[in-house]
């Protein structure tokens, strides 16, 4: 029973982080039609910024906030500096090909990922370093017994839950949230309603950047920080987004938690070496059985 609970709680905490990554991916996919493979590179970069601040004696929370803000700024820079020029190249015949139009931004995001990794290595040296957590990673005790959940797990779940609530409120109750949803669904009609769709899209990139920064801050206490540690997170986040539905924000969150449980249970009941294969199998199953994802709509391809 204890291993089940451990797997469950750890799966919930991990799933919460995957949900954040997945959410960020879907935000940019819906808003800009790009799957941003550089997303966790951005997160790695901003987590390094936080780490540097902490090493120079800033408080954890100060570093936390600055990391989130940097995430937003970095996301906006990626859109304004790279993605917009990319999609506005009118004289590129390469973009006339249907399949290239989705492929080129993917390649660009891979380039950004490579540059961010190299820069992180240059600025902060590539050796692994630890990252603090504000809550001790010990199991919570009730009386004398250890529960299968740690304080840090609770912290993660709490923070992500709060983020999801805020995000939902933003999208369903605010004007800007409505503008973002509308821009993703139908850019032309939204422009005809007087909304600057380009700026809204950049905001989407910024929010996605913040979400992934948060994911980076929450995952590195356990995995340590180096230019490559967050790569796995991207793979899982992508799979989560596909499973939940690349076109659905709710779906991305659902997918994140599902994958959190899958990985956690494979880790506990099977073997850690099987995790990659489990992810691949899960992804393939999802793509074969229900390519639009659990909560996604039927249009699999974004035109």
């Amino acid at each position, binding site marked *: 029973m204890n291993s089940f609970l451990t797997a469950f709680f750890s799966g919930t905490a991990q799933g919460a982080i995957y949900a954040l990554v997945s959410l960020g991916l879907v935000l940019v996919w819906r808003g800009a039609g790009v799957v941003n493979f550089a997303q966790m590179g951005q997160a790695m970069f901003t987590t390094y910024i936080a780490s540097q601040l902490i090493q120079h004696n800033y408080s954890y929370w100060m570093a936390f906030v600055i990391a989130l803000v940097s995430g937003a700024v970095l996301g906006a820079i990626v859109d304004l500096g790279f993605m917009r020029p990319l999609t506005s190249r009118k004289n590129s015949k390469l973009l006339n090909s249907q399949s290239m139009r989705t492929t080129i931004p993917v390649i660009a995001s891979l380039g950004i990922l490579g540059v961010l990794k190299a820069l992180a290595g240059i600025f902060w040296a590539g050796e692994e370093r630890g990252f603090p957590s504000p809550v001790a990673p010990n199991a919570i005790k009730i009386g004398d017994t250890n529960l299968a959940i740690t304080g840090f797990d609770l912290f993660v779940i709490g923070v992500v839950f709060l983020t999801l609530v805020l995000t939902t409120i933003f999208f369903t109750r605010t004007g800007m949230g409505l503008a973002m949803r509308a821009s993703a669904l139908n850019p032309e009609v939204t422009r*005809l*309603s007087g909304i600057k769709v380009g700026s809204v899209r950049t905001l989407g990139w910024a929010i996605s950047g913040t979400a992934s920064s948060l994911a980076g801050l929450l995952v590195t206490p356990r995995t340590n920080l180096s230019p490559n540690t967050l790569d796995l997170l991207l793979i899982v986040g992508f799979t989560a987004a596909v499973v939940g539905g690349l076109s659905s924000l709710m779906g991305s969150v659902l997918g994140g938690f599902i994958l959190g449980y899958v990985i956690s249970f494979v880790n506990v009941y099977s073997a850690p070496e099987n995790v990659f294969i489990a992810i691949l199998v899960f992804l393939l199953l999802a793509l074969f059985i229900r390519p639009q994802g659990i909560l996604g709509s039927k249009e699999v391809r974004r035109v």
Partner: protein
Amino acid sequence: MLSVSNLVTEFDSVKALNGISFQAKPGLITTVIGANGAGKSTLLRTISGLEKPTTGSIKWFDQELTNKSVESIVRSGIAQVPEGHAVISQLSVAENIELGGLFHRRSFRGDLAIATREVYELFPILYERRNEAAGSLSGGERQMLAISRALVSRPKLLLLDEPSLGLAPMISAQIISIVNNLCRATGLTVLLVEQNANTALAVADHGILLALGKVVADLPAKEMIADSALRAAYLGY
């Protein structure tokens, strides 16, 4: 007033608009009619900024609109209802209307609430179905919604692109009559592109007849109706 001078819009060296000039006077309904392919929709899309003209100018009173972005043209008080009752199907009726008023600078909540109420008074059926997805509305209701979204921003000029397209005659007549009444009541300037010349000329003050990208007649509506030779030659009846 809207002044269009020597407007030329090309698609891959085909001139869809070949030097169009006319004026749409404030507070009046000006209708642009003509056969299919005459350039009516291209004209409206160029004015609204969705297409960029090769040469020529578009002015709203003194404001040069010619190469501005779609969003800034809308923000200047020019609202547009593109053809095909463009609404966002996945959003609700209320959200579609709210979208139209989002960009308002002044304390939009106050104005937006009033404008929204006025729009619901104009089209009560939309109020009944305000929480339903726009995609579940009938064609006529969707057209009403598209117009509502445009109206809620209290525009000074309304561009209507073929509002009767795909609608039963009775419904499109109803919609056009509502627009007509609105124009008379509020002094809204309307530029109406219509396939159905009959209905359009019945409510319009002024008519512009297009053929092959050029203006062939620019007359008060009553005169255009009366000119049977013109009607026979270009409108087929």
